[in-house]
């Protein structure tokens, strides 16, 4: 048991670090990496694309992808090492993650050879940015309850409906959309998956303002939007199977809420904030809470070491890889709540004058979103219970009947 690279890993790490040092600037100590959250300006998109192209030219983009699409066929542990190293440098926010992490892999599995050749290389280079059009106002955790329709019209399909929680819709070239193509079929059987040009007429994009004032997501409205049949992924009415591939990759794309304060920040706060003239950390009650937070945060970190170890050994990581967000998101919220307790009355400030520049106020306002985005706590528990522990699935009242007959609200 140790934390060292194997000789091969060490060599790969050195190679990655050498290239990064030659092409990027390291983060200063304590400096936070650029966050995806917040408003996008075109300049930031341009810089992100520039960096992505530079990586692609040198063979450092999507390194696990096959060489024919621009990757280098790297192993999963090499991908981990690369991202560890890249995280030490000042880089633009990664606006390509959804495409490269979820949609590209879906195309690789379900796309035609022509689709792969057309879409994957510019996705890898960042020339074309992608967004995901899955959730709907009435289809969140119950994604297969989607109602956006696609109706065949000659060689095209006509799409109508509304999608929501779409990251980056306004700067994306392409979107991957799931639509209902047969409302008379069972819920999961009448769904078809398309690639849609986000500049098509009939698409309207509205940013969603979150409770923390940020806008990371959009609503996207479709009114008679035309998509050619050649943009279909998989067979007609077989889209749910393709969508599952996308969702399986989502866990990798959405982390445990990277960025934002961590245990060490809480520890620092407890050492600096004063209660009746003494640092709060001198209070034994504060210490009890700190210990529990520490153990939880470290448990999560060491669990990621176990996952890396499996990858390093060429094994598939065990189910422990699925606990990250379920532990991390509530932990962030609870640490923030406790930090605000420590701050006392000053917790009421969302102001530059707040302790630590309102670090914990912002975390408190942002953390509820972490518990919802990319699978709610409740959905994650169901996934762990069913897929990891083999417990029975939920009893379904929406199976075995046509989708249009599935209840969607209380009877009047």
């Amino acid at each position, binding site marked *: 048991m140790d934390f060292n690279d194997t000789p091969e890993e060490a060599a790969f790490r050195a190679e990655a670090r050498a290239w990064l040092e030659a092409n990027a600037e390291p983060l200063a100590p304590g400096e936070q990496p650029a966050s995806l959250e917040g408003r996008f300006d075109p300049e930031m998109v341009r810089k992100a694309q520039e960096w992505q192209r530079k990586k692609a030219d040198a063979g450092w983009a999507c390194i696990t992808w096959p060489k024919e699409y621009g990757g280098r066929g790297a192993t999963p542990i090499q991908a981990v090492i690369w991202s560890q190293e890249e995280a030490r440098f000042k880089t633009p926010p990664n606006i390509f993650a959804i495409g490269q992490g979820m949609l590209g892999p879906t195309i690789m599995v379900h796309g035609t050879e022509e689709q792969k050749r057309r879409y994957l290389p510019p996705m890898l280079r960042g020339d074309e940015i992608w967004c995901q059009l899955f*959730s709907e*106002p*009435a289809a*969140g*955790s*119950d994604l297969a*309850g989607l109602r956006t329709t696609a109706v065949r019209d000659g060689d095209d399909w006509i799409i109508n409906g509304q999608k929501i*929680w779409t990251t980056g819709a306004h700067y994306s070239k392409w979107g991957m959309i799931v639509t209902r193509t047969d409302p008379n079929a069972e819920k999961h059987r009448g769904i078809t998956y398309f690639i849609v040009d986000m500049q098509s007429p009939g698409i309207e994009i509205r940013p*969603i*303002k*979150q*409770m923390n*004032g940020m806008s990371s997501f959009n609503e996207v409205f479709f009114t008679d939007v035309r998509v050619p049949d050649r943009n279909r992924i998989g067979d007609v009415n077989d889209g749910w199977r393709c969508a599952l591939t996308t969702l399986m990759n989502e866990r990798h794309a959405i982390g445990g809420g990277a960025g934002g304060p961590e245990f060490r920040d809480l520890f620092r706060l407890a050492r600096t*904030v*004063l*209660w*009746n*003239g003494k640092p*709060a950390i001198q*209070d034994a*009650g*504060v210490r009890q809470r700190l210990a529990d937070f520490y153990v939880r945060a470290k448990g999560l970190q060491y669990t990621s070491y176990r996952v890396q170890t499996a990858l390093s050994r060429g094994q598939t990581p065990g189910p422990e890889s699925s606990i990250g967000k379920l532990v991390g998101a509530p932990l962030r*919220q609870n640490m923030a*709540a406790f930090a*605000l*307790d*420590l*701050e*006392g*009355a*000053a*917790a*009421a*400030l*969302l*102001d530059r*004058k*707040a*302790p630590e520049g309102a670090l914990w*106020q912002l975390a*408190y*306002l942002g953390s*509820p*979103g972490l*518990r*919802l*985005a990319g699978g*709610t*706590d*409740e959905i994650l*528990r169901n996934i762990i219970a069913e897929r990891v522990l083999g417990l029975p699935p*939920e009893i*379904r*009242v*929406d199976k075995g009947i046509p989708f249009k007959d*599935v*209840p*969607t*609200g*209380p009877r009047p």
Partner: protein
Amino acid sequence: MNFDFSDDQKLLRENVRSFLAKEAPLTLCRQVLETDGKYSTTLWQAVAAQGWLGTAIPEKYGGAGFGRLELAVIAEELGRVLAPIPFGSSVYLASEALLVAGTEEQKQRYLPRLSTGEAIGTLAHFEGAGDPGNRSLKSTVRNGKLSGEKTPVPDGEIADFALVTAKSGRDFGLAIVDLHTREVQREHLDSLDPSRSVAALRFERAPVEWLGGRPCGWDTLQHIFDRAAVLYAFEQLGGAQRAFEITREYTLNRYAFGRPIASFQALKHRLADWYVELELTRSNCYYGAWALSHEAPELAVAACGARVSATNTFELASKEMIQMHGGMGFTWEHDAHLFYRRARYLAAVLGPAPVWRERLVTCLERREEAS
């Protein structure tokens, strides 16, 4: 056994509730929050016109001469609608402090204007992050002049006067300061709950007089905070209860997988647990109200109990409200964040929650030693 509000008080509640349903929909809170309007002057005037500001102020000072039970009833209802007004600062803190510790002259000077809402008062105690104990308080009064900085001060931007905690040599007291004088600088601070305004106040040799005519001592501040804690606890209870009602309704009407989401035990059992917390908190609040209205020696313990319970429960409620609403609950447009912010504001307004737990046990020890 008569551990409930009376029929008259319940009637008052109904009246207050239906009045506020009209005058203070959640859109009003949102409006103040979004426009940074400090507070709703229209609601303030409407509430003043109802006589609620003087609920517990004796008639001879222009109040209605009711008791703290009536005030608790109103507080719960104001909590339900997240009322964007300086009711707590001006009534639970300033008016109650004057009633408890003011000289007759001070009462006559301030209370009538507080009852009508002409004047807004507040209490300025905190000096930045953490908790300023008797030992570490920095604001001082010398020769009748106050110097120091208080932050955050609830409604400090809009109040006409403040009771400011300060040391004078070894003594401790509450100094009454006119906030319109030159020696007071006010600075707007962005609030975690912008429907409730906070400010920094800087005093440079501002002329003051002591509440009660002389330094009242630390215990009086604790007593004032205990009284306020009971009333704030009713606001917290009201907020938590309203969040529960909205959420329960939503889970019954929101369908997923062909079923109302309330039918999933993951939510159903948490709603049951949430209900249980509300009932326990309500009981602790009632006990606080009893102790407050009877000026009972149990007040300190009862106030700490009500505050700890209500703070926990409003935090739980505001978290669960968002979580059970799913993604919509995280949007700006949804009302859930109004509750989430208010819960935090009310948790902060009387200092760190752990300090209240600590104090509760101190009170229990004292009681034990006395017995």
